């Protein structure tokens, strides 16, 4: 069974533990500028929104790459950047409709979320509020369905 990152802005407090965990996983540093997941503050709405790659099935970054440096990890479904192959042309950063693959000047390569391979996403483990979960990729809507199901009134006395 494949899994997906599931992001719930309603639970996010903007603490950036996820960004630090990502930066640590990939750069052995807490510098959030290097994170592949970003939390956006919509200050005047009072909303914090974590955002990262959704691992498109037909991934435009993969299709756009001229040197085949982005490959599918069949175990997780993640599209992963092969650093030795990447030439840093940045075409993928233009192709991605969501902005979730980005150039890293210090390495001359691009980086994107790779779901951290077989040990599971570090951001999910670091999130203190459950705003980031790692769930069955086929059932990312389950929580919402459950919520609506709970609103269904089946008590005959009140129908």
């Amino acid at each position, binding site marked *: 069974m494949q899994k997906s990152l599931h992001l719930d802005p309603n639970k996010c*407090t903007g603490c950036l533990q996820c960004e630090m965990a990502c930066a640590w996983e990939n750069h052995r*540093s807490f*510098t959030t500028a290097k994170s592949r997941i970003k939390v956006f503050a919509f200050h005047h709405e009072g909303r*914090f929104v974590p955002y990262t790659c959704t691992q498109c099935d037909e991934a435009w970054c993969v299709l756009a790459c001229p040197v085949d440096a982005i490959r599918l990890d069949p175990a997780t479904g993640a599209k992963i950047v092969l650093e030795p192959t990447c030439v840093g042309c940045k075409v993928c950063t233009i192709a991605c409709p969501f902005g979730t693959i980005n150039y890293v000047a210090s390495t001359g390569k691009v980086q994107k979320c790779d779901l951290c391979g077989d040990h599971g996403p570090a951001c999910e483990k670091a999130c203190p509020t459950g705003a980031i979960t790692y769930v069955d990729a086929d059932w990312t809507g389950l929580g919402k369905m459950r919520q609506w199901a709970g609103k269904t009134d089946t008590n005959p006395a009140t129908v």
Partner: protein
Amino acid sequence: MAWTKNVLRVNLAAGTCMQEPLNMDWARDYLGQRGLGTKYFLAEVDPKVDPFAPENKLIFVTGPLTGTMAATGGRYSVVTKGPLTGAIACSNSGGYFGAELKFAGWDMVIFEGTAPKPVYLLITDGKAELVDAAHLWGKTVWETEETIKKQHQDPQIRVASIGHAGEIGVLYAGIVNDLHRAAGRSGVGAVMGSKNLKAVAVRGTRTDAYQIANPDAFFTAVDAGKKALAANGVTGQGLPTYGTQVLMNVINELGALPTRNHRDVQFESAQAISGEAMHEKRPTDGKANLVTNGACFGCTIACGRISRMDPGHFTIKDKPQYQGASGGLEYEAAWALGAANGVSDLEALTYANFLCNEHGFDPISFGATVGAAMELYDLGILTKEEVGFELPFGSTEAVVKLAELTATGEGFGKVIGLGSKRLCAKYGRPELSMTVKGQEFPAYDGRGLQGMGLAYATSNRGACHLRGYMVSPEVLGIPIKMEPQATEGKPAMLKAFQDLTAVVDSSGLCLFTTFAWGLSDIQPQIQGACEGDWSEDRLLLVGERIWNLEREFNLAAGLTAKDDNLPPRLMKEPAKTGPQKGAVSKLDVMLPEYYQLRGWTPEGVPTAETRTRLGV
């Protein structure tokens, strides 16, 4: 090493930015942030300096756990000589600014001199430059942040700035970062303004600026710490749900909520301005004041309040800039703007709090000063003619109007901007000022909670709840329950709290973790991040050393044991109502024992033996 080992020295007069190595001997003795900043400050500044003179310095300083995954590891402090108190000033803030400074590769920024014209400091990793701020001078904190980000086409820049209050020298002006997190107390923003320094803007992208000494040990300790915060009733439930406002009804019911300039110890409308009230739907628009809770950098508690006002409220009806969500009321602000003045309009208090954030001034000192002015008005000493409008206790309009006037320095706002001590002295009634060392009390009555009274009297930065939070034992039973009116054991408990607090304030962590964490939870996190020996004994010695160093500064600045006092009202006028009815402060019983436990003479001076033991 969790320190970057880099200090940025900015000479505002000469316009130079120089890098120098951190004094690691001092880091080993004072850890970071509050302790290390104070050590540098004492080494470089004459304690007798005029706070607004170019010779005063202003230090922004992080701790070794700032910018790490340790829960709440995002704090920074601002150290200077405070204009409100003439004592050491050290104000601590969260938000995202402190961590960004570390990511850019700096433990500390020391500002010296005065810029010939308004400037801001722009730090981009290893590069630092002073930039002309003519276009920012006069702008609010909110406008300044937005303008700097736009100007440099980089929304990821973090900004700490002063508003108009800091520019014009409101004596309790603060420094505000990330729109509504503040190094709020003692007037550190006024010192920044006196230096013509509008803002510090930072972007940090380095991955090699500092290292964690022992990652395995660090993460083990950090994960355990996070679990403890989540499991604790205060940090896991109370604070995320109600923020610090969880205290409003509790402290009121206990009879320790100073009301109307400490005339009363209970506020009849406390419920209306409480954390619970912020959750209730308004009759006007059906929405609650509170939108959500928000966290500072790395914080797994998330006590911050994000509020949205009723857009139809009289204060903001025609002002769209206040109709979106922004930083809402914390307990101290709700108390100072509300109970201290007898005002119970939650929306109006939220607006006044927005103004404090937007223009950069401390809601505690501001609200408490208005309370003193209302008492002077009530006694007929202040008149409508002098103020420009009526100023009775309970007047929502007056609080709002004075917040607006204080922000801009217009009319009677100019006098309110001087703080309670100078206001009451100006009108010949100094005893009505509810201050210690010139700084206004926060939201706990020193008669109702005897330990807090002692904490206020002995706090090195003037009246303050964050130097030794005796509310923990006296109200919450942390780490043990102590009766509010008892004096026995209070001096020893306070000393322990003060020393532990100095450690927390020097580490990069938030003091609020200590509702759930003791030193045994904090020590392994510091030990995991920092090389060398950071045993509990050593850390407590560091804390005690910091406390004594601050004391030495104050003594050298001219303060004496006479300044370790409380206003006559708390010593002589008994609490009128509630469970503490009849109580006055028993400071005189506790203070001699406190001095003794500190290893100080009866005159409050560290003995030669204490100085030698601590190496101060």
